[in-house]
């Protein structure tokens, strides 16, 4: 059986478990399902961050800005203009994508300079959300944001509904990431990693491609932020633009393997669920410390992350196969 076919079967099984198994097993346990939703929210941002880092070659410390803009856009549209929640969520993504246009001048920068510039942009958006009190509610934020509606008798506003929505967002984001990676755009972006000058010489519009990745990454993050606003039903600038929305997804992506498509998802699920379900009951105060140690160990022993480590065949087995 070829690797490609094997991967497809594994993906189909994983999706079946995610869409059917998880709601059946945890549907009655709001706490565990709530934690899985929170982990998938981080996974969504982690996929968007990895897309920008892996394909665009840009390390962003400012994804909290897209998350915040997406959440505020969607919440304000639904609360003040009565836009249906699902439409508002997509418009939230659009708002984040538009906000990323303001960051395009930073594409001229590379490495730490780009990271620093995008971090500053994130802070600007947080200040805007705080100061635009008539629209955003200022520092007090917005309470009782409309929840997801009931469609054809299925309540998307409850835990299972929220889970299915965020799962779909994450799956679509990962599939989009995979599709781009396999396309000619993906090939051009890979070539850019090796030498941007050479790719420009052969006519690859590198700046356009990087801009497209930034806008797409912002859109995905914005949609995830919008989802979170309607799921939690609350927003304030400190929460919506919290550095946690940048740091945790980065940790998740690196832990899972940010150069793989599903690594960020596996990483987010692993670090969040293990931390909350395993470490927190053992060590209520300071459980994050164990997580930090685990992350350090992962970087030291498997710099590529969890997914490459899991898919790596044991040395003995290889030797045996060659024999």
């Amino acid at each position, binding site marked *: 059986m070829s690797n490609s076919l094997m991967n497809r079967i594994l993906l189909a099984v994983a999706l079946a478990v995610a869409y059917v198994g998880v709601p059946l097993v945890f549907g009655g346990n709001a706490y565990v399902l*709530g934690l899985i939703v929170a982990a998938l929210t981080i996974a969504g941002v982690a996929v968007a961050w990895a897309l920008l880092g892996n394909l665009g070659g840009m390390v962003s410390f400012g994804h909290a800005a897209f998350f915040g803009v997406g959440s505020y856009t969607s919440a304000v549209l639904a609360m003040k203009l009565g836009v249906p929640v699902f439409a508002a969520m997509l418009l939230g993504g659009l708002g984040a994508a538009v906000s990323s246009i303001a960051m395009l001048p930073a594409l001229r920068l590379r490495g730490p300079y780009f990271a620093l510039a995008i971090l500053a942009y994130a802070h600007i958006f947080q200040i805007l959300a705080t100061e635009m009190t008539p629209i955003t509610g200022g520092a007090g934020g917005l309470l009782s944001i409309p929840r997801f509606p009931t469609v054809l008798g299925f309540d998307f506003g409850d835990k299972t509904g929220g889970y299915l929505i965020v799962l779909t967002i994450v799956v679509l984001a990962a599939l989009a990431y995979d599709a781009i990676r396999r396309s000619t755009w993906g090939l051009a972006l890979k070539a850019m990693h090796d030498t941007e000058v050479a790719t420009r010489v052969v006519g690859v519009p590198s700046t356009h491609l990087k801009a497209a990745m930034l806008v797409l990454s912002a859109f995905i993050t914005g949609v995830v932020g919008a989802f*979170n606003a309607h799921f*939690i039903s609350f927003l304030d600038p400190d929460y919506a633009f919290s550095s946690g929305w940048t740091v945790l997804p980065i940790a998740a992506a690196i832990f899972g393997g940010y150069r793989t498509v599903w690594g960020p998802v596996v990483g987010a699920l692993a670090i969040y669920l293990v931390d909350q379900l395993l470490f*927190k009951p053992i060590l*209520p*105060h300071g459980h994050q410390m164990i997580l930090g140690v685990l992350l350090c160990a992962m970087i030291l022993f498997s710099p590529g992350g969890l997914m490459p480590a899991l898919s790596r065949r044991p040395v003995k087995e290889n030797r045996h196969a060659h024999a």
Partner: protein
Amino acid sequence: MKRTLAHLVTVSALALSVALGAGAAQAKEFLLGSELPLTGSLARVGQGMHEGISVAVEMANRSYAGKHSFKVQTIDDETSPAKGVAAVEKLAGDGVVAITGGYGSNIIGPASEAAQKAGLVYITSGGVSPELTQRGYPTFFRINNTDGYALAMIGLLQDMGAKKVSIVYLNKDATSSLARQVNTALTAKGVTVGMHEFDASTSDFKPLMNKVKLQDRPDTIAMVGYENDYVGILRASKVLKPQVKAVVGVWSLATAQMAKEFPDLMENVYGTSMLPYPVEFTQPEAVEFAATYKKLFNKDPDYLGQFGYVQTRLLIDAVVRADEAGTLGKGGLPDELRKTDANTLIGRVTFDKNGDNLNFTHRMGQHQGGKVVLVWPQDAANGKMNFPAVPW
């Protein structure tokens, strides 16, 4: 005769054993839930409330000994709204009868919404934002509110005869709301008010206080923020030395902790406080509260512990009443809690239809030589105010 006596003794013994057996069958253990920030930026205040909750459970176990017992399951929300929601859901899943705790209106909002969905009572003293009660959730209760803090600050400023007040306030929901309320009330009384907003990330208050000093030239500075903000404002003021007669703040200021940690900054500063420090109690319940607090935590109680105690004790008493009425398992706890009319360590508590305690009024204390002396209102004062007086 002997046979009759023996028969009587047997019947009495049987009756007694049935009565005792029935009593034992009615004795129940009630599990309360508590969701609090024990780590993160609100850890210090969360810990304070947690101590008060523990004292309430300890005292209730003593007073209901032999009849009922109480336990509390606490989950740290890590000062995060999403984890506050998760904590409430976990507690609901673990079968708690109600939730006591919560700090910060931004966390209490979504957490109490999760409690409402689970049909659980959520009682707090950690969120004073008006929006919390405006939602009209039947399961939400709180024992304090912005009005009580504003009334105390306005009352003290009026008694001082303040004519020009600069209000320096944090741009959060609860702090902005309180600052606006004080501004409106003082302006209506002919006092000149200057409003100065600052952001939570502000660490150097010198530019702001210089503006207050040179532009406003107030006779009183009013601060509405949290511990770190007060320290920053007072440090800047100590450098710039504005010519004012008093510096007044609200919560988290007139506390034993602040007196111990920042003695040079706190002298003569006013803040809301239900208790003097060292604590002076005369009521039997208050004396027992202070003694239990000392026993459990080896220190004197502060206002956070006092609020945590009161909210939890009111909840426990309502749980017992609902259980006796047979309505606890049928969603009768909110109605029972709404019937509360009690004289507590923070004064009279009753709840309106939105769960707010409209009787709540705070008191004002002043830091004097390492102590906190209650100076307002007159009938609660245990000393005279130093006026005019500032820390510099």
